[in-house]
């Protein structure tokens, strides 16, 4: 089987799964959801590492890869941290419940 064929299987399943998962997210959390998916999209860092770290990478790859790693790391770090910061704000007031 060709490898892109496997890619299509994986894409189809992941897209369905994404729909089911996101549809369930409470509107309360749509803002942190946006920053979380932002952070997840920083997965490009994987591709960036692969092209930058390669043996004998040409200068073009090095330069573009460097920028790409920088850009996705920024996303990665700020995305997770800000999501965490937002999530921490959501709390039930404990004393009121008891």
């Amino acid at each position, binding site marked *: 089987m060709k490898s892109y064929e496997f890619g299509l299987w994986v894409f189809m399943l992941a897209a369905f799964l994404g729909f089911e998962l996101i549809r369930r997210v409470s509107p309360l959390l749509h803002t942190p959801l946006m920053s979380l998916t932002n952070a997840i999209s920083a997965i490009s860092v*994987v591709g960036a590492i692969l092209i930058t770290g390669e043996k004998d990478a040409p200068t073009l790859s090095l330069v573009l890869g460097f920028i790409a790693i920088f850009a996705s790391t920024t996303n990665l770090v700020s995305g997770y941290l800000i999501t965490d*910061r937002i999530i921490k704000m*959501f*709390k039930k007031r404990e004393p009121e419940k008891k």
Partner: protein
Amino acid sequence: MDSVLPALYILAAAGFILALKWMSSPATARRGVIAGEAGMLLAVIGTLLRYEVVNYQWILIAFFLGSAVGVPIAYLTPMTAVPQRTAISHAFGALAAALIGTAEYYRHTPHGFTMGALVLETLLGFLTFTASLMAFGKLQELLPTRPMTYRGQNIVNLSLFGLAVVIGVALVISPEQTWMFPIFMTLSLLFGILLIIPIGGADMPTVIALLNSYAGLSASAMGFVLDNNLLIIAGALDGSSGLILSIIMSRAMNRSFTNILFGAFGQLHASAAQATARPVHSATPEEAAEILDSARTVIVVPGYGMAVAQAQHKLRELFDALTRRGVDVKFAIHPVAGRMPGHMNVLLAEADVPYDKLFEMDEINSEFPMADVALIIGANDVVNPAAQTDKTSPIAGMPILEAYKARTVMVIKRSMSPGFAGIDNDLYYMDKTLMLFGDAKAVLTSIVKELGAVPRAVENGNGDRQLFHDVSTFTTRTAEKKV
């Protein structure tokens, strides 16, 4: 090693999936963030350990610089600026995807299906990059927020896009023609800019969600190029998330994508807001405090104005004061109140309002008729009865919070000027409506202060609370723009 690395990737993907799964409710959301972080960590480690990766110095420097920029962004961004941050972060993500595609093209010049994926990756990457930058500019008000339109705009944009697609196809057919690539790049970048120009600042949130979806698809395409399942999965999750959010938003605004992308909506109706001089009742903060104090149930409707005025903390103080006095206070959250999905929830959560006091539109609409006071703070379109009554209104059919059914309606805003949709609101002219003109934060501050001064209604010897005011006695003045 060779069997450990794939396992790391699979676990990373599972981490991302669990992250989204646990994001579904506040109780598990933190666990979700941790799962997402763990997934990312596994992905990065799994990549660094791959035997192809031999050159670490540039990688580490870029990591370091990225973190140095990312940490301050995360901690310094005020909650009201989250939409802008989201936009800029899409720009970064899309840029990364596009650059990786470019590097891969010049290095390996793939063919066939892989080249198709690469073209898609760079097209979406570059256009999302510039489009997100434009969106950032509009949200941050570095650029004029109103839609900029000119005759034949849609035709220009579509032909440009068509040209980019044609060159893209040509590249897939003969990838060796490297001279075409820079043209393709330039066209994609340009199209991103032109795409956003005609869209109003207030439509940006929907556009941003859509750009999120594009960025995700771009990452998925990268996965096909690099033959990497993890990228495909993360991209697909991202892509569907953006798509669903934009669908939710446009549905809550009762508009279609085409309308948002080509409609230049904000512009169209800005002119509809001629301040016809009609009388309204206005009240002072003292009077408002009295009314609130004597109410049994109050439903607060926050909107974009609360966000702009950063009034959420004062609102919490009001909530506390009223709750202490035995008033039942609830918050009604419209799905598109504010300027991004979940905007109000985040702000109120930031101000420590317990989230079990926040109610979605469908839950609370039946309660307005029983409410003594609907307190509307910087909201406008989301409570405009025209959506239900006036079939010709631009917001006709948009589901609204039925604040007009409350016994008394109080509205805090600075003037009679309209909101995002640019249309007048009949709610303000009703007999039971009181306008509290002023900045939301300032007005709320005064009300809270006055509440301290007013003796508690329940203590007036009269056990049961009763509304003792007659709205029609309040100052009547003629509506004029105040700003």
